[in-house]
């Protein structure tokens, strides 16, 4: 049986193609679906084995980044998505997708609240960052141990949660990626290593079960080594980039 992942898009989503190519190259069928088709009832989330919310500027990121798409998903398809996640199907939100997951309440977790707000620099920023991979149950980062490098490109990536929820998330091993110094330890808020001022240098989080994952960096822009900004220094242009493993894990998990 062919497994299928839904890459959901709204007007302004713009990383759907490259994201589909990544998961698609791993033997999973990737279908890019306009959210309108879900709203019209032509397509259902339940037809898929996984969901990716890719990067971009859904609905122009008006109101707040990811807010409009997030609230539409929450209010119109909240129950369906909660069920989707409860069934253990993987959900990946990249950049704008992470913002959408937070706005629709699938991250940090059901009922709990978070926000991804304007970068401390107050502007959009595109750069590669070092990430520390934390101990977690996140199914997307299985086998990732050492630090990795991925690019970020966003204006609203400063993750905020209340004190209490942060503690709960930490205890439940929901922190997955933290912005790090080149040597590997967490950035401690220092700029530009932490590019946006996120609390606790948080770059990516998952739900308690580990099958819903949102991150600001773009793994699809680090799928092959030749996407890395310093690939010309070595001669392994052909090998995988640091983002590959995230999609590979997703594919393997779906086929489990």
């Amino acid at each position: 049986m062919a497994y299928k992942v839904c890459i959901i898009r709204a007007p302004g989503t713009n990383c759907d193609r490259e994201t589909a190519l990544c998961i698609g190259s791993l033997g999973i069928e990737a279908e890019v679906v306009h959210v309108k088709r879900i709203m019209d009832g032509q397509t259902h989330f339940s037809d898929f084995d996984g969901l990716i919310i890719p990067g971009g500027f859904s609905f122009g990121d008006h109101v707040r980044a990811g807010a409009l798409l997030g609230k539409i998903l929450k209010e119109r398809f909240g129950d369906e998505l909660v069920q989707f996640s409860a069934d253990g199907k993987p959900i990946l939100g990249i950049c704008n997708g992470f913002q959408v997951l937070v706005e629709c309440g699938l991250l940090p977790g059901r009922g709990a609240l978070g926000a991804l707000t304007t970068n401390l620099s107050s502007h959009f920023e595109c750069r590669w960052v070092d990430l520390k991979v934390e101990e977690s149950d996140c199914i997307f980062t299985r086998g990732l141990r050492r630090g990795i490098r991925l690019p970020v490109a966003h204006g609203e990536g400063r993750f905020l949660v209340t004190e209490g929820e942060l503690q709960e998330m930490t205890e439940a091993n929901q922190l997955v990626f933290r912005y790090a110094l080149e040597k590997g330890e967490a950035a401690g808020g220092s700029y530009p290593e932490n590019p946006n001022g996120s609390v606790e240098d948080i770059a990516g989080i998952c739900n308690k079960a580990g099958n819903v994952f949102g991150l600001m960096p773009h793994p699809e822009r680090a799928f092959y080594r030749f996407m890395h900004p310093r690939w010309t220094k070595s001669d392994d242009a052909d090998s995988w980039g640091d983002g590959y493993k995230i999609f590979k894990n997703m594919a393997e998990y779906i086929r489990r």
Partner: protein
Amino acid sequence: MKWEVRISYKKGVLDSEGESTLSGLKTLGFNNVDNVKAAKVYLIEGNLTRRDVEEMCERLLANPVSQDYSISEVK
């Protein structure tokens, strides 16, 4: 002194934030909304005259070609 500066788009200039907020609200079921306009507000404190604040608007905060600004004192 505390001043409030409000920057909005001039009539006829596209307010895409207002437009998409309107359609977002409708999608969420607020069918009685007819119109939404977005604007930006700066609250500026300091030992400043109205003339100073006007100058700030002209030199940095607003573009007179596409935006209107209004200034009011906050008591």
